[in-house]
């Protein structure tokens, strides 16, 4: 297990370097003139260009630039934004909100998704099952921004139940509706995944064995069926947490949440390259670590998986 963890960590390195280099090259390297449009209608002053070129090593070739950036990164230096603020501070301000939103979304999708999946999987064909199948179909088909706009309009503007714009440093209650929107697609997947694995496991031989042993139905379902079914669900949720933390751009935009998604979007529109690269690097790290944790979790949950 230890050796497996180490090997997976080592495998992450090229992936990390590749992903971040692509992003770095895209935002820094591909435009002919990095200062085009930076200073409004006028051309930038030579003094400004000199400061910027020095700050971002723009005279070096792109690979050297990237390596210098990476070197600074390892000392915790994310660089500075165009206006001179530390990127690390900007991220530190916005990231807690995004993490909070991702966790709210994850809890909502896990609780509702798993419950719906269990109920429809155990009941078998019938009204509840059809209801779950149809509603998951709709959730999968609704793009997140449509769900968000509709809920904002109905709950916020017309019924006045929620604020249409989430305040700075929001409470959990402020994030429930945005969290629901963010998690809605995965909620549908969780429900379907739970349902399918439960149905598959219902027919499994070891469930029949458990019944033949004279265990109570509660124990057969709770210990023998659920544990096996939830392995797939838990791993999906783990991967999803990584994705949610990087995929909240749309939701944050719709509800005006000042999180990392809004930050990166604003950074791109204002061509604030350092901010964009900093955030993307961070999100790639989060995403890769989430996937590694899921792999390890899988090994813990299913003893058949042996890594060596």
């Amino acid at each position, binding site marked *: 297990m230890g050796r497996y963890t180490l090997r997976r960590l080592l495998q992450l390195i090229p992936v990390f370097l590749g992903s971040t280099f692509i992003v770095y090259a895209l935002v820094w390297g591909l435009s002919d003139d990095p200062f085009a449009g930076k200073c409004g209608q006028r051309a930038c002053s030579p003094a400004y260009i000199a400061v910027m070129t020095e700050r971002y090593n723009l005279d070096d070739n792109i690979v050297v630039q990237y390596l210098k950036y990476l070197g600074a990164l390892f000392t915790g230096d994310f660089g500075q934004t165009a206006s001179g603020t530390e990127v690390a501070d900007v991220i530190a301000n916005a990231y807690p909100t995004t993490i909070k939103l991702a966790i709210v979304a994850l809890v909502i999708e896990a609780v509702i998704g798993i419950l719906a999946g269990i109920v429809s999987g155990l009941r078998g064909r019938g009204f509840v099952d059809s209801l779950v199948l149809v509603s998951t179909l709709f959730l999968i088909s609704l793009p997140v921004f449509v769900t968000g706009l509709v809920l904002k309009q109905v709950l916020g503007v017309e019924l006045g139940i929620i604020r249409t714009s989430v305040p700075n440093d929001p409470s959990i209650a402020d994030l429930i509706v945005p969290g629901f929107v963010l998690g809605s697609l995965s909620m549908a997947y969780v429900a379907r995944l739970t349902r399918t694995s439960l149905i598959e496991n219902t027919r499994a*031989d*070891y469930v*029949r064995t458990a019944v033949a042993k004279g265990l*109570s139905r509660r124990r057969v379902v709770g210990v023998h069926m659920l*544990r096996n079914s939830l392995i797939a669900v838990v791993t999906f949720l783990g991967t999803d947490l990584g994705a949610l933390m990087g995929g909240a751009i749309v939701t944050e935009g719709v509800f005006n949440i000042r999180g990392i998604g809004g930050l990166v979007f604003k950074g791109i529109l204002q061509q604030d390259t350092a901010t964009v690269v900093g955030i993307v690097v961070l999100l790639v790290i989060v995403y890769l670590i989430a996937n590694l944790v899921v792999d390890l979790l899988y090994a813990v*949950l299913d*003893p058949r998986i042996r890594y060596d």
Partner: protein
Amino acid sequence: MTVAASHLLEVEDLHVEFGQGRDTASVLNGVGYHVDEGETLAVLGESGSGKSVTAQTVMGILDTPPGRITGGSVRFRGEELLGADPERRRMLRGESMAMIFQDALSALNPVYSVGFQIAEQFRFRRGMSRKDAMARAAEMLDLVRIPNAKQRVREYPHQFSGGMRQRAMIAMSLALDPELLIADEPTTALDVTVQAQIMELLDELRRERGMGLILITHDLGVVAEVADRIAVMYAGRIVEHTDAATLYAHPGHPYTRGLMDSVPRVDDVAGAALRPIPGLPPSLSAIPPGCPFHPRCAHAEDVCAAEVPLLRELGGDHQAACHFAERFVAEDPDRPTTHEVVSR
């Protein structure tokens, strides 16, 4: 037949169907057998003949739906089980009757240790603590002769070999000391050498504990050695029933004969063709009228397509469901002895 006040287990005229409407399959069409303490009843038949469905109905683990019990009776020590309170039936499982399955790898839960799964019974049926239950589980593994039981009790099913897994399965089924054990093709998935060890173990445990044993199999070799009585099933019916020696010497049903002819024999001339039964078992949703075996039977006459032959007594506790059973019993000249079949 010794008519005791009540047998350990008695199945009578059991009918089970699967599916709905035109797709209805009649899987059991009046199965009846019984078993007493300390004896081994072998149930023999091709796959799809209803052996396992009967066993699952007895255990009360038949999936309903799709299955449907449409008639008959299952009595354990005289107590009717069909229609009994589900909780009562659950208490009988494990405690009074237990079952082991063909494929121990899939019959054991892959995510729990073998010991955990045995210990479950002690914990939830005997109220033992986790620790005591684990200790008892190790004793059970020791009983079925798994070496190093104390360590292996913590291992997972996939870490056991095929034979070991089946031993663990047996240990699990015997945990609550049941009076009846149903073994559903317990050795089919195993190597031949391991098969013999498992059969020996089962036979020994049955003798020690005075259990009734129902051994479901399609393997004549397995049956010959350990069975006191044999019931042959075809298309959801018992077509012949007698003790092992009589069955081999004087089979009264052409299907039984066919089964034995399709097994290679030691005295076969080298290169001699086997004699498989022609055709396939009938589709259970379209069982032919009359004797269900008549389309495959070389001796079929008009009456076979018209009348269902009932299972009738031929004398000496030998029953067969064939219109011409007496003829077959009498004429049969060239039967292998039990020994020859076993040593194939």
